[in-house]
């Protein structure tokens, strides 16, 4: 069996991917999800994961300590706005949730979007920071906030897409913690066209 | 005369039940006497509201109903002072704190202060101490002081003198006697010590296995041969007397009882005052002729009224002295030797030093001859 660590926001997608993999090969992949920061810390201290799908590019790079062959990009994230139209971002009376910019790449991107001149009218608004993207969704889902800037992959279908130029690209990289034939076989599958289309279908873009 | 009316049905563990239906005087001191486990504490608990008797029970003090079919006053509304047999002091407060606790919640009666009770019960040097660091007797005194300070309508005392030494016990008894008459607070007190009982009580309730065995004024009950009290080893009769003369030379006082004279240790009270005397049956002996060269000062002419066997070898005699009665315990052999019969007139010798006097009304120092 393979042990794969995955950032929480990619977990549903990866689960879907693994279902296909299992159907084809019969191999069971054990998924462990947590936030990217936690998983990175764990990997630094001997966590028994073979591969780590992070939500950003820095932390896999940190883990690989410069060894480019151990990391690769597997998806590029997109943002979407749930709960209203783009114009609402300029309305200070509408509360907005984003993921924590300090810890979550989607939070950083969302902050970039919110900081655009066009929305400065709302700069005084109460910005609710969720721990991660999933929590930002929960805030919106519960009705506690009016708007949420979410990963497209998590956002409801009627969410409005945010133009990708409005923020730095959200490249999600994976880190190969323990290379092995099984890992290689799995990675080949992950890089296959089938999977790429699954990823795109889930609301990501493919890597450059 | 107002009364304490008790009609209580209260069940305890196993098949014990307390079933009491009686009237007690609502003034003076009533002793509750009976063997261990006869329900004395249970009775006090019911009166204080700490145990709930059956729904039909009635507890009335004077014209205040504490409990009947309709009302069951909560314990804190009953204005009952209770000295528990284990002191039950508040361990988180000092002695003074305990007393102040009672004072802050005191009822309308009584206006003595912490200083007063601490003088009466010699607590001055204990004020700052924690209850846990007191000796058993000291704790008991604090508990009595605390109950007094709450200025209750009635005082319940459960074996209050058990841990006190002879002197302290005497002082306490005298204090309670005084307070009972001066403040007009009725007291119910439980004791195993018939001497204590007859020193302090005016009225007696005898319990046995949760039932009233007999009840009545102490004086009457004491001299009745069928009350159970006369069977006690320490049976004693109580006489009412008046002070007739003080003999300063010998430090004695003479009392008049039914026209006869009884000599006791000097009393500090004026001629004419009333005085109660306790005369243990075993201190009374009988002779046909008045002895002349004996150290016994008190020799009274009496009539044998009743004779009752106590065990195989002794008799208790009920001796009439005017309208009052003495008890005497003698051997069957002596009775045979003297050929004693009911109706005989004989002399009762009372060792004067055996007189224990209880003042009928306050103030007299209890000094024994």
């Amino acid at each position, binding site marked *: 069996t393979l042990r794969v660590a995955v950032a929480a926001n990619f977990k549903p997608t990866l689960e879907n991917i693994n279902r296909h993999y299992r159907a084809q090969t019969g191999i069971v992949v054990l998924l462990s999800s947590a*936030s*990217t*920061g*936690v998983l*990175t*810390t764990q990997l630094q201290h001997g966590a028994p994961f073979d591969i780590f799908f992070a939500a950003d590019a820095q*932390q896999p790079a*940190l883990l690989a300590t410069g060894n480019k062959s151990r990391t690769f990009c597997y998806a590029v994230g997109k943002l979407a706005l749930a709960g209203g139209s783009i114009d609402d971002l300029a309305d200070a009376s509408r*509360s907005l*949730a984003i993921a*924590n910019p*300090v*810890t979550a790449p989607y939070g950083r991107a969302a902050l970039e979007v919110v900081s655009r001149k066009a929305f400065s009218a709302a700069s005084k608004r*109460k*910005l*609710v*920071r*969720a*721990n991660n993207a999933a*929590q930002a969704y*929960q*805030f919106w889902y*519960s*009705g*506690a*906030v009016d708007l949420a800037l979410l990963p497209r992959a998590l956002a409801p279908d009627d969410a409005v897409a945010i133009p990708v130029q409005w923020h730095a690209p959200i490249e999600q990289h994976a880190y190969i913690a323990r290379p092995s034939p099984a890992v290689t076989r799995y990675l080949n599958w992950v890089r296959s066209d089938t999977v790429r289309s699954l990823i795109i279908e889930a609301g990501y873009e493919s890597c450059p | 005369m107002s009364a304490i009316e008790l009609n209580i049905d209260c069940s305890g563990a196993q098949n014990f039940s307390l079933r009491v239906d009686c009237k007690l005087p609502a003034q003076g001191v009533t002793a509750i006497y009976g063997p261990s486990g006869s329900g004395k504490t249970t009775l006090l608990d019911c009166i*204080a*509201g*700490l145990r709930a008797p059956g729904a039909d029970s009635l507890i009335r003090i004077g014209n205040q109903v504490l409990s009947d079919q309709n009302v069951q006053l*909560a*314990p*804190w509304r*009953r*204005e*009952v*002072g*209770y000295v*528990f047999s*284990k002191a*039950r*002091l*508040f*361990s*988180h*407060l000092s002695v003074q704190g305990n007393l102040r*606790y*009672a004072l802050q*919640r*005191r*009822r309308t009666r009584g206006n003595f202060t912490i200083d007063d009770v601490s003088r009466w019960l010699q607590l001055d040097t204990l004020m700052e101490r*924690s209850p*846990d*660091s007191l000796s058993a007797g000291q704790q008991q005194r604090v508990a009595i002081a*605390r*109950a007094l300070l*709450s200025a*209750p309508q009635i005082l319940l005392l459960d074996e209050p003198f058990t841990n006190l030494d002879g002197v302290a016990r005497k002082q306490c008894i005298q204090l309670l006697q005084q307070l009972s008459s001066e403040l007009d607070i009725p007291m119910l007190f439980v004791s195993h010590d018939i001497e204590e009982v007859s020193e302090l009580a005016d009225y007696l309730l005898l319990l046995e296995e949760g039932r009233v065995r007999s009840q009545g004024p102490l004086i009457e009950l004491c001299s009745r041969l069928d009350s159970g009290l006369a069977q006690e080893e320490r049976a004693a009769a109580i006489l009412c007397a008046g002070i007739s003369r003080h003999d300063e030379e010998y430090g004695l006082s003479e009392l008049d009882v039914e026209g006869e004279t009884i000599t006791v240790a000097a009393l500090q009270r004026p001629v004419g005052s009333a005085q109660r005397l306790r005369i243990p049956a075993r201190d009374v002996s009988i002779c046909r002729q008045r002895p002349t060269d004996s150290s016994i000062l008190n020799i009274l002419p009496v009539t044998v009224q009743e004779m009752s066997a106590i065990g195989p070898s002794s008799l208790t005699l009920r001796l009439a002295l005017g309208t009052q009665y003495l008890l005497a315990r003698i051997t069957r052999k002596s009775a045979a030797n003297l050929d004693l019969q009911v109706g005989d007139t004989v002399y009762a010798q009372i060792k004067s030093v055996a007189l224990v006097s209880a003042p009928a009304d306050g103030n007299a120092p209890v000094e024994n001859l």
Partner: protein
Amino acid sequence: MSLSDAELNAIYLTLLLASVTTAILLLVGTPLAWWLSRRRGSVAALVEASVALPLILPPTVLGFYLLLMFAPDTPLGRAWESLTGAPLAFSFSALVIGSVIYSLPFVVQPLQTAFSRVPAGTLQAAATLGATPRDQFFSIVLPMSSRSFTTAASLGFAHTVGEFGVVLMIGGNIPGETQVLSIALYDFVESLQFAEAHRLSAMLIVFSLALLFFLYRREDASAWRVSA
């Protein structure tokens, strides 16, 4: 060792939250514990079980359900907003409510145990001196349980300081409003700023140790002690 403004703010918020929460916990928990200690039977057992319930839900999950309750379109949220004019979710008040619910068992259970151990005889003595149950409670039960109040308050306080799952969920991590120390610390760890995390933890630990130490050091007065 200097602190950033945000950190100072977080410390202030944390202390405020923990103090307010502990105060409310004692206010709410004391009568509840008293009631529980006097009652037996199914109703009391059910209440007792419910008090302990928040413990078994992971804090974030508990927080999620609280959030569902606090949202502006729920009865509670609506009522709150019409009363105070401000929404409940992501407010300091929400944090307080969440913390109170979460820490309730730590306060109620020690108090309940303490209360049920005050000897019945002592309370009876107080009652015959004229103390109503209320009075008995304040004059006897409270002072006799002081040691358990220390336990309860310190568990409640400490737990609120350390608690972050619920706080994060219903507070929304808004700097200056709902970003408490535990979240700030968590952020450092998440973003792998370990040096910062160590610094903040060390501070928190030293401060708490000192506080707890002084709390627990109160010697009891009796110099004279019985052995055995």
